[in-house]
């Protein structure tokens, strides 16, 4: 009985450490756990230390891309939003609000799609490919500025039907294995799928560095991996279905602190 107790104490310490980093009053425990709490201490240590976290390589690249002029307009992100060095204040909290409704396309868009919309409209540059290193770099740089802040999905009534469809998809059994997201991540969270612990699927740290990927990836990559895992055909990147799922997951994780860029096994 000694070891489980010691582990519990360690988990409590981690939680306390995170809460301190977020500088927020301790909230009532509602049973929600970040994927961080399901990791081994060794992997947690990589995420806690920015000098070790390989995702910081993308953040560093993102800061460089931010200041670099591009496209026919010859403008950079910095031309509108201020230099990368000031971005910590200008971009603070942005990642907590996405996906958000975009009036131009009349649907919710993710942070990556927002970055690409900016590129096309304001920089008059070509959109970056999904999961391209440059897009992930910019996304991780922006997400990093919200680290420690609570996830705050917008209370936009136009998002409601999309979010409801997302929840429906979350509970829909799909694929040859006939499994829904909820069957693993609600009903069997904490149990094991082969050697891996099933987390509660709260997207608190995206884009994140996954040891299995040996690189940075977005939430959509993770979702596509899960969908292929139950042997269903994954939705292509950027489709509204993936955005709807992301909308629901962010609502489900509302109030949890952003850890981006996180590390996962």
């Amino acid at each position: 009985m000694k070891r489980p107790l010691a582990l519990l104490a360690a988990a409590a310490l981690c939680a306390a450490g995170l809460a301190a980093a977020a500088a927020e009053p301790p909230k009532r425990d509602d049973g929600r756990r970040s994927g961080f709490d399901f990791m081994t201490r060794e992997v947690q240590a990589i995420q806690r230390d920015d000098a070790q976290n390989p995702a910081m390589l993308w953040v560093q690249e993102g800061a460089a891309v931010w200041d670099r002029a591009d496209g026919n307009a010859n403008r950079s992100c910095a031309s509108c939003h201020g230099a990368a060095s000031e971005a910590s204040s200008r971009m603070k909290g942005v990642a907590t609000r996405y996906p958000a409704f975009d009036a131009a396309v009349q649907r919710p868009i993710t942070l990556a799609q927002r970055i690409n919309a900016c590129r096309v409209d304001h920089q008059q540059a070509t959109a970056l490919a999904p999961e391209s290193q440059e897009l992930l770099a910019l996304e991780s740089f922006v997400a990093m500025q919200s680290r420690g802040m609570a996830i705050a999905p917008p209370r936009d009534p136009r998002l409601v039907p999309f979010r409801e469809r997302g929840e429906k998809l979350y509970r829909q059994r799909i694929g040859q294995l006939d499994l829904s997201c909820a069957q693993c991540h609600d009903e069997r969270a904490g149990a094991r799928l082969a050697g891996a612990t099933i987390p509660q699927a709260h997207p608190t740290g995206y884009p994140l560095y996954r040891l299995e990927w040996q690189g940075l990836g977005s939430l959509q990559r993770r979702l596509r991996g899960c969908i292929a895992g139950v042997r269903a055909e994954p939705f292509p990147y950027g489709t509204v279905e993936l955005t709807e799922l992301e909308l629901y997951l962010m609502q489900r994780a509302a109030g949890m602190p952003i850890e981006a860029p996180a590390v996962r096994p």
Partner: protein
Amino acid sequence: MARALITMPATAKRGEIVEIRTLIAHPMETGYRAGDDGQLLPRNILRRFSCRYDGEQVFSAELFPAVAANPYLTFCTIATVSGTLEFTWEGDRGFAQTERVALTVAA
């Protein structure tokens, strides 16, 4: 897009042990994996890392295919004189990258 992050103190007292932590972006492709077409992906790894402090080598390492992508290396040296630490990574396909960080040593 080779990027490197080096974390170390900017100043130290003479005789103090300084911890240096390095992280570099590199795929470390082993040469044993097959690509989408079933063909082996050619090996592309870092072979050697070295750190010179004021011209003198204080640390070096050889890297092999079993090392994960984006290698993280950490080591210590003793602060002796104010100078530059020069970090060099060398690898397959003529990969070579050098970063320099200044260290100020107070008596």
